[in-house]
């Protein structure tokens, strides 16, 4: 295979690797695959963590290796780089749609939010169930490091919000 064809094949394999904590998202939806390098026989996948303490990162690295092994690649190296820093703006539009369909409110565009004033009103987040903006934040920290907990005042459904980061 020529290296561009090989690279395309690798990207399409990466598109099948999902986030173990939010299985509806693939790692390419999340925007955490930064580069694919082919050095002769060795394939290097460069990823970047979403959150510093995200426990899913080790598992994602392992799943990348497994997926590539299953598809006949052997020498695989997964390297994690921190810079430039990942933000929720790196998530693809497709990824955001999938999150919403899954019942998790996708991150608002970053420039609208990230208000660090004390006791600042919670940002307006749309309910993924009924689309109402009449929602309130229950907790800034949620079930995983990347989410906060909201509740809809109209349909009363509590939901996770993939918070701006």
């Amino acid at each position, binding site marked *: 295979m020529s290296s561009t064809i090989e690279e395309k094949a690798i990207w399409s394999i990466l598109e099948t690797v999902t986030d173990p904590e939010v299985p509806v998202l693939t790692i390419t939806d999340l925007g955490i695959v930064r580069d694919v390098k082919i050095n002769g026989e060795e394939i290097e996948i460069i990823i970047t*963590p979403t959150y*510093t303490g995200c426990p899913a990162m080790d598992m994602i690295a392992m799943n990348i290796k497994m997926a590539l092994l299953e598809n006949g690649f052997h020498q695989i190296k997964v390297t994690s780089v*921190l*810079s430039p*820093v990942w933000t929720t703006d790196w998530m693809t539009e497709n990824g955001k749609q999938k999150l919403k369909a899954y019942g998790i409110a996708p991150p608002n565009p970053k420039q609208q939010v990230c208000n*660090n004033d*004390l006791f600042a009103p919670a940002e307006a987040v749309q309910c993924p169930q009924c689309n109402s903006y009449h929602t309130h934040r*229950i907790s*800034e920290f949620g079930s995983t490091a990347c989410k906060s*907990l909201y509740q809809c005042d109209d349909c009363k459904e509590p939901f996770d919000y993939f918070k701006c980061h």
Partner: protein
Amino acid sequence: MKEALINYTLHLADTTLILAQRNSEWCGHGPILEQDIAITNISLDLLGQSRNFYQYAATLIGGDATEDSLAYLRKEREFKNLLLAEQPNGNWGQTILRQYLYSQFQYLLFEKLQQCNNEQLAAIAAKSIKETTYHVRWSSEWVIRLGDGTEESHTRMLKAIDELWRYTGEMFVPAVYETIVDVSALKNVWLQKVNIIFTEATLPVPEKAFMQTGGKEGKHTEQLGYILTELQYMQRAYPGAQW
């Protein structure tokens, strides 16, 4: 030069690890569910930061060193964490105050560190400062809520200041290996920030106080031994045990 960098990286790693371990003791014991989740999330952020620092230290040290060997197999005197990080949780107010005093400092430190000419330390700081921003805001709000809350919560915050203030001076006294960021230059800004929050919280900023130091050089309060006993138990009892 390289030894100084290793020691500095370990100092950053140890402080974040020990504070993460302390905060994690709240898991399942928080005053309400949302705040239980908040403090354990903060713990997780700090643990993630410490892993990044340990991983970098391990590459600098080379040989058999790994993030795990550095966290699990070093002794008390080798730990270089700030004394503030190892202080007991006490009540919720004391935990909040410890977090606030540290996060406010960490924010100023990482602001500088992300601009330093060591690429990896700068990258870790740039990555972490977003989380630290949350920690500062969350803990500031709680200091205000409790300080300006009921008579009971106010009294407890006064007691917490009494317990913890003496460990804050150390943050601004550079260790010999601490040359990358001049921490002594952060003191005034830190005090100004603390003043704003304490004033809002109707709490006094102590003027003169004895400051305990030593953590950066491995001289700890009696607390650290107990923390390591629990933290390192598995690897000490069953060397090489894997999850």
